[in-house]
């Protein structure tokens, strides 16, 4: 009887465990473009050389990573490795690979600039690496501008100039709106900083909403009110729900779209030869022309039962040749110092728009402001982003005034800080 109960107990425990069998490594992965296929290909090769490790690649939607993974992690569950963007906020759940990898110095030398983005404050843990570096920035539909007879604004053009020029195009070509911006606090934070915003107070805690945030926030509301900015992306949702406006740009519904470098592969695949498009960096504000850096990281999860195997997989994927291949095939900007320093990226695309677009983002990366560069490694960034989206979209919908929104944002962020204590 005892044996039977023991067997049942063991079976139950094995079913409940995420990866109970030695050698099993489960990876949660989301894709913006073709990276799901590329990583599968790379992992298949690893699998051939390491038959003792069984890798399961779960391709999930970004929403799953954003909404379900954090709950799994809070419950001490989850995959063994995950591709995530909310890397600082959840840093307590990442596995410290430092004692597991064969050469920790390799990681520090090549990923040192971004390791702080994905580990708890004050820690020297190596928790993973950025699969891509991203930078927010704009895209213009060159064909629509040409058809409208409007010149593309220059490199130092302001947001107002871009909106004005795009509005002329929109009126001439009867598009739905002049510009579209993803519904995301992350997306408007570069522009906020360009108008002088700084979210971080001297003590490292969230600062009150300042004039920079107010300046660009007011512009967003005004543009929506005037029909210049695509209303539905921001207005037709509540809370901090993420909405991309990529499809509206792809369908030539807006001449100007502000998103980020990760869209290059997506635009290339979906626009094809339908029209010419260019990446134009971030328009300027009063303080600069800043985008916001970020990206997706591949991290080990500390609840894994197979830490040694996880480290093996991570070491393979972080190899210089693998990072280079992954970046070239996915059209993502690499975060590996060795790859960047050596240059000579052979982007795997026949699309004439891709090379110049990636070059434009690399050039734009040099224009980010310090207040923007501090955000990826700042613990409270997500709290700020969520509050910005929720409240500004309420103003756009006519539910509250801008002044009320600023007060609410301060309150929301303070609540989040208090809640986390």
């Amino acid at each position, binding site marked *: 009887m005892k044996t039977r109960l023991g067997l049942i107990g063991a079976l139950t425990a094995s079913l409940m465990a995420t990866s109970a069998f030695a050698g099993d490594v489960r990876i949660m992965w989301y894709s913006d473009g073709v990276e799901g296929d590329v990583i599968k290909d790379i992992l298949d090769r690893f699998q051939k050389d390491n038959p003792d490790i069984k890798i399961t690649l779960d391709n999930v939607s970004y929403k799953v990573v954003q909404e379900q993974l954090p709950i799994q992690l809070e419950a001490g569950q989850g995959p063994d490795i995950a591709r995530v963007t909310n890397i600082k906020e959840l840093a307590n759940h990442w596995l410290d690979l430092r004692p597991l990898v064969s050469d920790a110095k390799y990681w520090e030398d090549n990923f040192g600039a971004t390791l702080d983005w994905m580990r708890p404050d004050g820690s020297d843990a190596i928790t993973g690496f950025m699969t891509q570096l991203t930078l927010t920035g704009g895209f213009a539909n060159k064909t629509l501008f040409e058809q409208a007879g409007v010149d593309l604004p220059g490199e130092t053009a302001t947001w107002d100039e871009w909106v004005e020029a795009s509005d002329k195009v929109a009126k001439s070509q009867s598009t739905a709106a002049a510009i579209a911006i993803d519904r995301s606090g992350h997306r408007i934070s570069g522009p906020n900083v360009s108008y002088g915003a700084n979210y971080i107070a001297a003590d490292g805690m969230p600062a009150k909403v300042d004039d920079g945030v107010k300046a660009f926030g007011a512009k967003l509301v005004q543009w929506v009110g005037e029909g210049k900015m695509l209303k539905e992306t921001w207005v037709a949702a509540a*809370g901090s729900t993420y909405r991309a406006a990529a499809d509206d740009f792809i369908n030539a519904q807006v001449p100007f779209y502000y998103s980020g470098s990760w869209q290059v592969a997506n635009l290339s695949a979906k626009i094809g030869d339908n029209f010419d498009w260019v990446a134009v960096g971030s328009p300027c504000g009063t303080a600069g022309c800043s985008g916001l850096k970020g990206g997706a990281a591949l991290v080990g999860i500390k609840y894994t039962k197979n830490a040694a195997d996880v480290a093996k997989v991570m070491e393979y994927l972080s190899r210089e040749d693998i990072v280079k291949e992954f970046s070239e095939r996915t059209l993502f900007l690499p975060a590996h110092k060795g790859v960047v320093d050596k240059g000579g990226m052979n982007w795997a695309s026949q699309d004439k728009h891709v090379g110049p677009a990636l070059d434009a983002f690399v050039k734009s990366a040099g224009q980010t402001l310090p207040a923007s560069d501090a955000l990826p490694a700042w613990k409270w960034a997500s709290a700020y982003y969520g509050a910005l989206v929720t409240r500004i979209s309420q103003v756009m919908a006519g539910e509250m005034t801008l002044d009320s929104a600023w007060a609410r944002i301060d309150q929301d962020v303070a609540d989040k800080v208090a809640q986390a204590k």
Partner: protein
Amino acid sequence: MTERLSTGSKVGAALAAPVGWLATIIDAPLKLWQRLTGLGGMAAFFLAPNMLIFGVFVLAPFVINFFYSTTSGAAFFLADRTYVGAAQYSRLLDCGSYLDPSSCREDLFWNAVHNTFWFVTLQVALLIVVSMITALILNREIVGRSFWRAVFFFPVLLSPVVVGLIWKWILQRQGLLNSVALQFGFEPTEWLTDRFWAFAASITVSVWAHMGFFTLILLAGLQAIPRDLYEAAEMDGTKPGRVFWRITLPLLMPNLLVVLILALIRAVQIFDEVYVLTGGGPGTSTLFITQYIYEVGFASLLRNPGLAAAASILMGAVLVVLTLIQLQIGRRGEKKGARE
């Protein structure tokens, strides 16, 4: 034939044998149990499996949820969470005026409460009227009656997400409705980005999705009304309106009350189809309580399960009141039936 029966009997006996053995085995302990506890004990014994399921899947989660509502933090396990007493409830109920969400500390919750109140009021009223009219029509001898009954019931079979997506494709900026309107020279309407139209769309879509179920209940009630009452009224030359108010409506009242309570409970719980259709927007115009709980507890960038649990307890209290009303009405109906 004889051989078949014989084979059937053998199979039946073979199947019944284990049941017989089982009965023999448990007979003695059951008899002992009955002798020790009486008939009440036997009732408890047979109710135990159901009560166990109820306890594990309903009562225990409710109790755990209540404990969550007295804690704060993002941790998942109760033991890791900080006890804060009634702080989450205080935060939810901290208002200058409950009629003005902007005066409330947790304004999004009160926006959701207001929206839910108006949604429930308007949706249930419209749902009952539309279901009633549809049931009255389907109760008549119309051509293709069975076909029409199936047509009106069909949306009930659809997943709420499918309902939301279908209507989104119809109502979005470049959706079917605006395309048709453009063909006829009308300006496109912001069905999903205008606060009024988005709220109206939520009600309409919800009524469309659920009316089939309630129509069916009312139709069953209509068919239970004795035909001779209508024949007598017809012989008396009673006008159709008077027949409806004096015969149909009073005799349909028990069904209508069931429909009313069920519709109220469903409306308070509204979430999926509206979430897919509008995402709670524009702004918070179609943010209802269930979505608020979901957003706060699961979807926001920094979750607050304690606050979400407190909101769900308050919502649960409303549902309990509605259910008690339903039970009370049901009992009153049973007593009335027994008297008659």
